[in-house]
């Protein structure tokens, strides 16, 4: 954007090389190249071309492309900017995030003191042994959790977001104060419907979508052809192991049977031996140490009726995965950590964050695979829903986008709600902060998350929130209180997400 393209490109190339060098993939490719020299068709005179074509035909070049593709998802680094700037360019946002984190940590510490439970302690040997034996039954016991309360609720976080102000923003002008009816006062760049139509062109009313166009009401002949075509295409994508193609494919929804593989491919969440080993190490950590947050995790797992076993296993391991801290180099958030004998052993999750894991339990039954996919989804998307940043997929941008879409395209509804003292964001916030997990039926939720992966953005969550308001607009226009507005929007379990989004984006009168 601001530099000569050649310079920027070579910088990017250099940085990616730096990051891939010394990685496991690098040593694997090296080994493969070494071993291929035994082959008779690899000749000394044309060594370069022969090795290269060997790596291509054996699929290693594709793996490398996938790894490079994954690296490109991470933010680029330019020499002049310091690291904290790359995570979050706006100084006042970094400050707000830091003070929010302090608040959360303080809350956790005070809970610990109040209850007399340390943040972390080592389990005695007998308890460790018992837990090892019961690892596969975990989740069926009901420990006494009545004393534990959540660290914070979504509405506390919303208040922080609403209070955010840019010190350089001039809010004295009457015009600017009245032009935005919503709660978010930060002027971030968000896209309106014309831009969204361009960006989400695959969701056009004329394009087939998984979950709508394979419905039983369609004539069987058409259904068969379309479904078979999609299934064939997705099989090819999976067999070719092409991350970028999988992502493109996911924009129109994944077939149920192949979703697990497609998501793993898009996220480049491999299940190599070292991944399984890493998971086993984390599991060992769970058995060894008991953390205060474990109790919070147990508490939440009963709210969501998924296989509780897998769910608990994954979350407990995640809270100990310090490799996740590595990811926070790209995010200005610093998660609270707890120490046992000087060693950092945990990333402390927040209340409700376990809602992100639950849907994945329906896709994967192997713990280490589920764990890897969840971890990738968390560090790419979900963490943005509970940290303060100016990123287009951050919760702040999503809130602003929701409010702007509503004000621009449903002004009567917005005005009416304000008249009765209801701010729409207060109704929609809890949906967006959980990416609708727990509010939609599972199959619909997975179709929504297909698009999050396919478009590499959480924007579709804000669009759906506005689309739900559009769908229930008639009922909402008749309510006269906050309680009745909440009642209208209480049950989303019967909604079909893709038709709602399609109609809102492509059939709204402009």
């Amino acid at each position, binding site marked *: *954007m*601001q*530099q*000569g393209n050649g*310079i920027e490109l*070579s*910088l990017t*190339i*250099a940085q990616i*090389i730096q990051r891939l*060098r010394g990685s496991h993939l690098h040593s694997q490719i*090296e080994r493969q*190249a*070494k071993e291929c*020299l035994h082959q008779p068709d690899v000749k*000394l005179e044309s*060594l*370069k071309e022969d*090795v*290269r074509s060997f*790596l291509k035909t054996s699929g290693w*070049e594709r793996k*490398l492309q996938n790894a490079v593709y994954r690296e490109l998802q991470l933010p680029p680094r*330019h*020499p*002049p*900017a310091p690291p904290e*700037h790359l995570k979050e*360019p*706006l*100084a006042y946002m970094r400050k707000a995030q830091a003070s929010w984190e302090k608040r959360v940590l303080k809350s956790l510490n005070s809970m610990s003191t109040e209850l007399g439970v340390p943040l972390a302690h080592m389990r005695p040997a007998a308890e460790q042994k018992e837990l090892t034996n019961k690892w596969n039954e975990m989740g069926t016991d009901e420990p006494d959790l009545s004393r534990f309360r959540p660290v914070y609720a979504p509405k506390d976080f919303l208040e922080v977001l609403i209070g955010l102000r*840019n010190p*350089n*923003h*001039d809010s004295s*002008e009457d015009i*600017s104060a009245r032009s935005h009816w919503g709660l978010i006062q*930060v*002027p*971030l*760049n968000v896209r309106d419907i014309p831009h969204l139509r361009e960006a989400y062109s695959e969701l056009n009313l004329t394009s087939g979508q998984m979950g709508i166009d394979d419905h039983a009401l369609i004539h069987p002949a058409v259904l068969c052809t379309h479904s078979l075509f999609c299934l064939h295409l997705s099989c090819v994508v999976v067999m070719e192991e092409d991350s970028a193609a999988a992502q493109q494919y996911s924009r129109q929804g994944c077939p149920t049977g192949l979703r697990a593989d497609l998501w793993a491919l898009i996220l480049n969440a491999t299940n190599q031996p070292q991944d399984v080993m890493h998971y086993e190490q984390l599991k060992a950590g769970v058995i060894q140490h008991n953390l205060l947050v474990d109790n919070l995790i147990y508490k939440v797992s009963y709210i969501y009726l998924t296989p509780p076993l897998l769910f608990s296993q994954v979350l407990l391991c995640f809270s100990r995965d310090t490799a996740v801290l590595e990811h926070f180099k790209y995010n200005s958030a610093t998660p609270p950590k707890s120490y046992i004998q000087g060693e950092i052993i945990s990333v402390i999750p927040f209340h409700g964050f376990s809602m992100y894991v639950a849907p994945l339990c329906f896709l994967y039954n192997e713990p280490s695979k589920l764990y890897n996919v969840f971890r990738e989804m968390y560090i790419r998307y979900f963490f943005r829903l509970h940290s303060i940043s*100016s990123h287009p997929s951050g919760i702040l941008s999503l809130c602003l986008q929701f409010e702007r879409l509503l004000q621009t395209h449903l002004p009567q509804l917005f005005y009416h709600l304000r008249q009765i003292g209801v701010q729409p964001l207060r109704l929609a916030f809890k949906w967006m902060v959980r990416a609708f997990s727990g509010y939609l039926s599972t199959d619909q939720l997975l179709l929504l998350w297909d698009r999050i992966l396919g478009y590499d953005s959480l924007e579709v969550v804000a669009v759906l929130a506005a689309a739900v308001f559009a769908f229930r607009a008639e009922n909402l226009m008749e309510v006269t209180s906050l309680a009745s507005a909440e009642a209208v929007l209480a049950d989303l379990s019967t909604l079909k997400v893709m038709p709602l989004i399609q109609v809102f984006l492509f059939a709204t009168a402009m």
Partner: protein
Amino acid sequence: MAVITSCCVWQTGHSLQTSHLFFQTMTPDDTKPVNFTVKAPVYLQIGDTKADTAHSGVCVVDVNLPFGKPVNIEEVTFKNYYTAYVTVRLLRRNPEQEAPAKWCTALRDLPLMDNPHTERGSQDYYTIHRTQMQVEPDHVVCVRLILRQPSLAWLTFSLEDIKIFPHTEPDPEKEVSDWLSDLTLIDQHPDLEGLPDPQTVSSSIQQMWALTEVMQTNQTTASIGRFDVSETHSQPHLSCNECVHDGGDVMKFGR
């Protein structure tokens, strides 16, 4: 701009000794920025009296380079603070001609913010390279940055941390290469049947060379006796049993 080469060594064994992959990377500058003085930014006002002024959304920042030392600019870096567009003008003085220094526009209205009313780009770091400029930024005496921010949304706007880096002659460099496509072979073991080992030959040549150096410094007119001048080569040549002939090449010892 300094360029470093980093390489990764593959131990492949067998018929290849080693292979090297060469990468070219551009580092953040090893060269130091030029020392200069920045005058206080001048915000242009509209209106006659002090009470009646309105912000025009235009600001001028003059950067005076050291007197008597015109600079050839490689790049200009700065950190933005809510400036929407920047125009760069240069005062250049040609050292050969006696003509007075002239102003020219190097870059007009470079957008720093996507949308002047919203945050994107408002606090980003920027680099303007000489290749992006419309004129050659050589023999520059003064740089004038004209900042524009048309939006009423912001209380103030400016540029921070302005740095100017001088142009240095580049080192002979290789091209930036794709890591996989630039596999360069060195140190192959050729087929050595009948020939002595190259390593041994080179070390013995070195010894011979050192000996001849010593001999040169201790030259006498006395005949040494052990060496004969041979007529079989195209040039006068001292034949000795350690002289290696390879395909007609003649190795000469001494002067």
